[in-house]
């Protein structure tokens, strides 16, 4: 088991958001985390990446506990995050954003190779390498955020709301890229509202509702499930 989250509780101040969801990710999988706005998806990801401290439960990554570690140590352990809203550094160039992705000492030696790899996946970024991150289009910023995350040579890539605000064609392109990334040996945990496209590429999925796991199954099963289709896919 690569990632095992058990009975996680977490929140902001007095407001509890997660009420003990559990989930597992095997090495080499694409696992999706679905659910409507406010279901707790982003909170779970913030707890996983160390930006938020869980109040209870456990998170284990490659057999070692993760909960409570600060975010910069979680990255060092091999989990990279593409945060919601992309969060590229707006006043730094594309290249500087990527260099920052390989800030960790363990990633610096492979820096040039990683950057070539990112530029070959996203040729658009290579064209704009000297441009400030804030001047890119939304889609290009999303590419930059994904590329930046790959620069840390992660074993698990956590992607938050990748398709939000993107043109459908571009979103489809990026979903394909996630497939390529998996074939490079990186496991993917994908948090999404766009259930239909997500379930097509996901091996398994969890549906989160009010901070709990309401449903889980393989992508194909959930895609055919009547309840899921009604509640989450609007079909």
């Amino acid at each position, binding site marked *: 088991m690569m990632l095992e989250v058990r009975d996680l509780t977490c929140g902001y101040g007095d407001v509890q958001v997660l009420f003990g969801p559990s989930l597992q990710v095997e090495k080499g999988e694409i696992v999706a985390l679905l659910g409507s706005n406010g279901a707790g998806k982003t909170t779970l990801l913030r707890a996983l990446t160390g930006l938020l401290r869980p109040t209870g439960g456990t998170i284990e990554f490659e057999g070692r506990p993760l909960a409570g570690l*600060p*975010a910069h140590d979680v*990255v060092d352990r091999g989990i990279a995050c593409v*945060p919601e809203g992309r*969060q590229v*550094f707006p*006043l730094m160039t594309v290249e500087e954003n990527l260099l*920052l*992705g390989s800030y960790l000492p363990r990633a610096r030696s492979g820096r040039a190779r990683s950057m070539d790899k990112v530029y070959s996946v996203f040729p658009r970024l290579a064209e704009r390498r000297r441009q400030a991150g804030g001047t890119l289009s939304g889609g290009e910023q999303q590419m930059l955020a994904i590329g930046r*995350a790959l620069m840390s040579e992660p074993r698990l890539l956590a992607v938050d709301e990748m398709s939000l605000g993107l043109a459908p064609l571009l979103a489809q392109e990026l979903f394909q890229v996630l497939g390529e990334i998996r074939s490079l040996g990186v496991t993917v945990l994908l948090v999404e509202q766009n259930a239909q496209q997500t379930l097509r590429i996901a091996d398994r999925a969890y549906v989160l509702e009010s901070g709990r796991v309401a449903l889980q199954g393989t992508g194909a099963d959930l895609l055919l499930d009547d309840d899921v289709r009604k509640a989450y896919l609007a079909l």
Partner: protein
Amino acid sequence: MTLVTGLQTLAGGILTGGVYAMVGIGLSLIFGVMRIVNFSHGEFMAVGMYTAYVLFRHFGIDPYLSLLLVIPAGGLLGAAVERLFLAPIARAPEHTAILMTVGTGLILSNSLLFLFGAHPQTIFTSYSTSTVRLGPVTLSVPLLISFAITVAVIGALGWVLARTDLGRAIRATAQNRDAAELQGVNTAFVRTAVFSIGTVLAMAAGVLLLPVLYVFPTVGSTFTLKAFVVTVLGGMGNVAGAIGGGILLGTAESMGAALGATGYRDAIGLVAFLLVLLFRPSGLFGRSRA
């Protein structure tokens, strides 16, 4: 004002402005990354002045040479103050940091008062009053040396910020702290480093001003104000803008003094400050963040 006195005044203003810029950049960098207005900034400058003063008086070390000691000492002092007083309140409301830095400043200036007494003191080096002539313009040698060192220090800082991993981490932390953490940047460490660098800049500026300025325990408060003016002129958190702000303040002050308002030297800077706040609240140089 004749052309020659005009040039003379301009040159003097630029030389002083360079040192103002160095004080201002420290304040600006700290604000940009930590979102803290460091009200003890000028007091660190005063500590730098007294350190160089003691080294000169008791050990005969030339003030410019004493930078080799003051810079590492300033780095340690800044790091210690950040770790002990500012890191514990990193997540507290903003006014907490104001009280903390004001308090730190009071402790520093009163310690200086206790150690050295209130009377202004100065040092006299062989070159304190020497000048060089550049065409029709006469330039003070200590101010010229100070300016050259300032340019070197600011240049080195600029290189670190633009080209190194630490520099990129500092800029990233200023732009988006959480996103910087997600890249593996220990932003608590970055805050300590930045406060340390800011303290070094303030203390080094104090050393550079010692040959041309009287030192007394509260000399810092004027400079906290000047640093603040420089920072606002340049745009809060805009490090490059602070250079322009410093030169502008130095020039405005010496021009004002040359036009007969010597007693209003500090007031001129504050008027410039108010005008900028009224008409360009994000600073003269556009964008407002590092």
